[in-house]
């Protein structure tokens, strides 16, 4: 009894400063300003820094490092009940949780904790265990670290303007397609943008995880170190999500990105301005008859964002005609099932966003509870010390003794609230992951729409070409013997029609392919959603039970110790 009292007391006295720091340490709000899902980015960064605040190993937030109150932190990812496989049924028997949940701090997990705040479905092998029994031994773990400033080698007119930051990207894997089991490369953010763009082109229709924002404003406004760290965390999460995607993890693009030393050998994306310029150069040629059809290989990419301005105009005209023209477009989105699913997705996203906001409030409330409980405990500790020092009467000493019990309990309870919260954040983070996933879904659906538009445009064009051919046919049949120029024009037209037919076939094939991708992805998402949400709910509830039990035990002891004061009117 004495021992634990002293321990609590010395801990508290020694760490009062740390506790005050902890108390005052607010998670820094660093919104990424992503237009598409502002709340998602905001929440993500707040939550990850909140989670970080409780990691003994997280570099940027030093108070947590030195906080002895948090040091012997039991650490267990409760999102995986399968991890505690030997305890699967124990939760039915009370009060098992208080013991079940809290295994001693595992040194092995220490080095991996950096970044484990990412509920990366990929990185945790047991997660893939619980969800894809077929690839039971597939394992790929990506870490982003060691940011360094580098200089661009070319002579620049503006000195110092060509520095950039590279990150060390380390991969550990046992997948045979990769050369080796552990390797690292240095990449800069621009490379990540390239990777993301190439993937978007190659994997249309798939739910591709969205890449981190460019954050141009923030890179200027934030402290350099803070910004780099924020970016490092975001990159790691992004790459882990890519590796978690069963199709994308096997992509050449990703393999090349992770393995090839030196310059990234993927075609770089050019900026919009230069694309438009290129397009403008070609436009006159297109308008005057040369190369007026779109090449089949180009058809598989959307018109928007490309160089082909003429095609862009045509598709724009088509979409206007779709929306405002009286007639139905030649091909419409007929898949009712898909339309239903799309609608459901919208509703889901809305409620998900709401739930994620409320989750944030809940976490804050738990945090505040813990803090205030701790402050109360400290205030009582001070009072106790004071009474003991100045005590003239035995009643004072007794009171001081009672107070100390309460104070110690309050401090313990405070610690439990904080731990509870750290775990809660990890569980409820699933809500945010899925909000991010919604972005990917919208992207995939957009791929489908734009592919459909391309098909529709080509069909309209074909229809127009056929009409022209008919007219030409009718006119030339009136002139006996044939008009040389008209015959030539007829030939050209037939050629154009052939090429356009080719393009149309390709476009339709592409459209069907994307539709199929959408379908399989939706299925995959549904399955994973069941598993992920199940883990989240079970983990959240289990967590609440365990900590509530611990807190109850702490207070029950004090209630027992002070039971002498109880009135009969209980």
């Amino acid at each position, binding site marked *: 009894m004495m021992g634990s009292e002293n321990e609590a007391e010395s801990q508290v006295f020694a760490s009062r400063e740390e506790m005050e720091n902890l108390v005052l340490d607010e998670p820094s709000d660093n919104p990424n300003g992503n237009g598409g899902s502002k709340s998602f980015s905001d929440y993500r960064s707040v939550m990850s820094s909140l989670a970080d605040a409780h990691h003994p190993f997280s570099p940027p937030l030093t108070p947590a490092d030195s906080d002895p109150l948090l040091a012997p932190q039991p650490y267990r990812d409760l999102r995986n009940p399968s991890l505690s496989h030997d305890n699967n049924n124990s939760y039915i028997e009370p009060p098992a949780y208080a013991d079940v949940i809290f295994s001693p701090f595992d040194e092995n997990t220490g080095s991996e904790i950096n970044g484990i705040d990412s509920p990366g479905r990929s990185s945790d092998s047991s997660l893939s265990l619980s969800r894809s029994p077929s690839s039971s031994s597939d394992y790929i773990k990506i870490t982003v670290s060691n940011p360094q400033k580098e200089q661009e080698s070319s002579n620049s007119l503006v000195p110092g303007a060509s520095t950039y930051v590279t990150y060390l990207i380390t991969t550990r894997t046992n997948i045979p397609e990769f050369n080796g089991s552990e390797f690292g490369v240095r990449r800069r953010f621009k490379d990540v943008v390239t990777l993301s763009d190439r993937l978007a082109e190659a994997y249309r229709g798939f739910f591709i995880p969205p890449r981190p924002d460019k954050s141009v404003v923030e890179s200027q406004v934030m402290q350099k170190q803070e910004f780099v760290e924020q970016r490092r965390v975001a990159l790691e999460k992004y790459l882990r999500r890519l590796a978690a995607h069963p199709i994308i993890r096997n992509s050449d693009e990703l393999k090349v990105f992770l393995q090839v030393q030196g310059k990234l050998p993927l075609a770089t994306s050019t900026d919009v301005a230069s694309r438009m310029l290129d397009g403008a150069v070609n436009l006159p040629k297109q308008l005057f008859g040369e190369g007026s059809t779109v090449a089949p290989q180009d058809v598989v990419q959307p018109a928007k964002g490309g160089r082909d301005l003429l095609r862009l105009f045509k598709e724009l005209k088509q979409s206007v005609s779709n929306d405002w023209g009286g007639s139905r477009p030649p091909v419409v989105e007929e898949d009712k099932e898909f339309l239903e699913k799309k609608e*459901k997705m919208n509703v889901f996203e809305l409620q998900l966003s709401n739930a994620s906001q409320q*989750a944030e409030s809940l976490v804050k*409330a738990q945090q505040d509870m813990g803090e205030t409980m701790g*402050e109360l405990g400290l205030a009582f500790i*001070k009072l106790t010390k*004071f009474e003991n020092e100045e005590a003239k009467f035995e009643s004072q000493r*007794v009171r001081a003794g009672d107070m100390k019990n309460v104070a110690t309990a309050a401090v313990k309870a405070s610690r439990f609230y904080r731990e509870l919260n750290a775990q809660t954040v990890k569980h409820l983070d699933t809500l945010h992951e899925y909000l991010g996933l919604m972005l990917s879904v919208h992207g995939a659906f957009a791929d489908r729409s734009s592919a459909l538009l391309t098909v529709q445009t080509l069909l309209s064009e074909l229809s127009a070409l056929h009409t022209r051919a008919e007219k030409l046919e009718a006119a030339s049949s009136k002139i006996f013997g044939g008009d040389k120029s008209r015959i030539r024009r007829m030939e050209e037209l037939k050629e154009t029609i052939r090429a356009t037919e080719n393009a149309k076939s390709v476009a339709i094939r592409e459209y069907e392919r994307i539709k199929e991708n959408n379908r399989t992805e939706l299925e995959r998402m549904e399955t994973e959603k069941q598993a992920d*949400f199940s883990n989240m709910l079970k983990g*959240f509830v289990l967590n609440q039970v365990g900590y509530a*039990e611990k807190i109850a035990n702490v207070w029950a002891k004090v209630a027992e110790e002070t039971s002498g004061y109880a009135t009969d009117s209980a």
Partner: protein
Amino acid sequence: MDQQQRSSSGYSHSPRSPSSQPYLSVSVTDPVKLGNGVQAYISYRVITKTNLPDYQGPEKIVIRRYSDFVWLHDRLFEKYKGVFIPPLPEKSAVEKFRFSAEFIEMRRQALDVFVNRIASHQELQKSEDLKTFLQAEEETMERLRAHESSYFKKKPADLLQIFKDVQSRVSDVVLGKEKPVEESNPDYEKLKHYIFELENHLAEAQKHAYRLVKRHRELGQSLSDFGKAAKLLGACEADGLGKALTELGAKSETLSIRLQKEAHQLLMNFEEPLKDYVRAVQSIKATIAERANAFRQQCELAETMKLKEINLDKLMLTRSDRVGEAEIEYRELKEDSEEAARRFESIVRLMNEEIVRFQDQKMIDMGRAFHEFAKGQARLANNIADAWRSLLPKLEACFT
């Protein structure tokens, strides 16, 4: 409240005790809001059950309002110097307008405690003013109340203001700002220092206790909101997941209600006793100021008396015809000086008794408050654990 307190001295307070035993039992009940707007106030029923000869009948009921309690407090403070007069709940001009049920109940409870502490105090229970307070007709009280405010030229409408004045005067004295007409009593110095420090510590603890109440309410609110959001999300989903989310949402809402209840308990049984403790310490500070006054008076009179004595001797030597006059003056002064000395000593004596009583009482009061606090927190945590635990098998069922 305070069964132990009542039995500490004087009369017993159980009406069920044998009728030969003197008893005096008071309760403050039935708060009723009267009047409108700015003039609105709360009236309370004060029920006195007694067999004491000076009191009317076995039971007497009167209607009293807050300012009547203030009157009683001020009268006792004037008459019983040296005694730590039980503190009143704050006047709180602002909260009065809201008159929330919680506020009314807290005030009623505090007033009940106030009167009972007086009735069970060895000295105070003998007070005539107490008798008046418990027995007099409403009109009489009204007259006395009005008279009181004009009698004291200072017009101490706010009890807090009195304390503030006293506080600054006492701290002036303690800091030595005025002429050092102070007792040179090291034990007493220690006591004064203790009381001042104690108030600071207690105020801080009470502040955090109040915040803790707020945190309970906030957590309750966020659980309610989260529960609603989970239910809405569950409505979008099919089968297992949908049901699971709905169940989670419902459980969350249930716990929200539980938390609000606990917040109220915490306020009444933990935060209020702490606030009461702070008030008690402030009352002691007022007594300290009175003692300082009494000491100063005693010293001044003693000084003046000595001067008069010297003067008298001088006159006697010169065989002045003013000797007779001077002798009478001197005698009167001597009586006053002795009276002042007696008063001061009485205060010292009473304070010594009071401080022991105070420490004992606070040991019990806080012990009880701590017990309720711990019990409440344990009960809450257990309820929370039980609620979430009951959800687990349902979740299992939803996902298989």
